[in-house]
């Protein structure tokens, strides 16, 4: 393209940008983030050997939260489609794998893949209607919530999902990677969860920097403008939703294998959706590392308060025997973070860093 250009124009105020303008960053952000992810994974590998076994369980819980959070963040953070119903996908992942394992003896690995497919399929259907009818903001959130609740109610009263009883994973003798079953305090659970979380994290980074990810970011910023520049809006929104649901389904499937039991409330209850949201918002919505920070905080919080309450320091003694404190603390933390750090911990830190 040659021809007339608009001459000059004023440069960015101060700190003359000429140098910055032409030089590319040394390492593409995608590669930098993948490198950081790899380092984090390597650091985490020996953790279960170091931590006492009670903390090992907390670490696994953190990883499950992380998987859910990464899934939710793709749709609602990167994509700006605020889902209040991710329990639907978590539950579909959990129930699909549990059903296949309990009723048909299918390996949970296959069950996990099946759960991802089912969750992605349902997400695409729900998404299609929600986008087709242009639901946005609070309306979109309420619609996703309604679908998750409908699934919970249907599962609760359907015979082949065992109604309200749910599924107990049959115990096997010994350990098996194929059946994802090990001794209760085996570090293998942690490593499998870590591997899954690492894959999910990598998927989320690669997605963000892909062509599709750029489209989705543009759609989030301004859907009409993006459409006017030829962005295939519906297709990329649905792809985002499907990826998000599939990753969340992995969390559900792994949850079932780790806890060996799932019922409608555990899988489809609104508290699951809330956990996914709270984790990301505390960490930093729409950031790559927000889910990690959020999961560490939210995942360990209830354990910290429980320990605190079991053997309270003197000044908290009056609280012993009172119920509800841990949730109240959690609620206060949530409110404080949202009020004081509206972009979440990572988001706010990054904004400071840039300045």
């Amino acid at each position, binding site marked *: 393209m040659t*021809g007339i250009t608009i001459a000059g*124009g004023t440069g960015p105020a101060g700190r003359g940008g000429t140098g910055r*303008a*032409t030089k590319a960053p040394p390492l593409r952000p995608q590669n930098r983030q993948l490198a950081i992810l790899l380092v984090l994974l390597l650091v985490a590998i020996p953790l279960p050997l170091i931590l006492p076994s009670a903390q090992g369980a907390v670490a696994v819980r953190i990883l499950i939260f992380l998987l859910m959070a990464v899934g939710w963040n793709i749709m609602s953070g990167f994509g700006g489609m605020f889902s209040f119903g991710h329990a639907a996908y978590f539950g579909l992942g959990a129930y699909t794998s549990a059903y296949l394992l309990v009723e048909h003896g299918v390996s949970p690995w296959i069950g996990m893949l099946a759960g991802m497919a089912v969750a992605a399929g349902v997400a695409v259907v729900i998404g299609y209607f929600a986008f087709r009818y242009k639901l946005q903001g609070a309306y979109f959130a309420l619609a996703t919530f309604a679908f998750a609740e409908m699934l919970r109610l249907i599962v609760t009263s359907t015979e082949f999902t065992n109604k309200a009883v749910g599924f107990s994973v049959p115990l096997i003798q010994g350990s098996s990677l194929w059946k994802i079953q090990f001794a209760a305090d085996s570090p293998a659970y942690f490593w499998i969860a870590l591997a899954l979380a690492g894959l999910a994290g990598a998927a989320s980074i690669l997605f963000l920097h892909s062509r599709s990810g750029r489209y989705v*970011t543009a759609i989030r910023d301004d859907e009409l403008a993006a459409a*006017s520049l*030829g962005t295939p*809006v519906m297709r990329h929104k649905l792809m985002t939703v499907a990826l998000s649901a599939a990753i969340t389904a992995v969390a559900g499937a792994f949850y079932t294998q780790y806890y060996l039991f799932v019922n409608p409330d555990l899988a489809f209850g609104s508290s699951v959706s809330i956990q996914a949201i709270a984790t990301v918002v505390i960490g930093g919505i729409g950031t790559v590392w927000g889910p990690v920070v959020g999961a560490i905080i939210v995942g360990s919080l209830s354990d910290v308060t429980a320990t605190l309450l079991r053997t309270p320091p003197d000044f908290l003694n009056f609280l012993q025997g009172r119920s509800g404190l841990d949730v109240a603390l959690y609620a206060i933390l949530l409110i404080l973070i949202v009020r004081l750090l509206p972009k979440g911990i990572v988001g706010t830190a990054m904004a400071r860093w840039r300045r």
Partner: protein
Amino acid sequence: MTILNVTGVGKDFRGLRALSEVEFEVGQGEILGIIGPNGAGKTTLFNVICGALAPDTGRVLFAGRDVTGRSPDRIARAGMVRTFQLMRPFGSMSVLENVSLAAQHERQPARRLRERSLEVVERVGLGQWAHRPATELPTAGLKRLELARALAMRPKVLLLDEVLAGLVPAEREPVLDLLADLREQDGTTLLFIEHIMAAVMRLSDRVLVLDQGRVLAAGSAEEVTSDPRVIEAYLGEEPAGAEG
């Protein structure tokens, strides 16, 4: 050769007639100015042509194909691209990223995409801003960014909605030169909504006047400005060209 053909287009907003029986044609490589008082339906017309709104009646033919009611993104990829009166940058991206988003429809290696995007950014004079967040741009810069994103699409037809509004006269000239050059060099067809009559007079081959959702007059700039109906429609309005 006709590239855009609008026939019998009508659009209601809850009983409010925004467009009615709008008909016109635009030839390949033509520059069509669209003027009219506020609320005449100019932007609505753009929304209908580009698929952001489905018309209640009528059809839009682009390069001989019916695109009525098609989604905006398909129309844009087909080569008919618009800019917005109010600037709509992607706030979380840099200027360059804004532009490369529009340029990435063609499959190409990342390096090539980057070069091409930079070229477009340079062409509209935003080279020094390329890696700054789009939200930091001043108004004039945002206007150029709108233009740059549209250009990166390599449009066959470009619809510009008040691309000069908010620019001081000194900033207008280079934009006008660029637009003129677009047709010369790239053969782009232009439709532009404009309040600044001097620009309309200078650039357009033909002018379409809209009033209360209808086509009031169409013809060369001289013809329409001397049309008594047009003058009447503008009566009571501030003198044309003051500011849009």
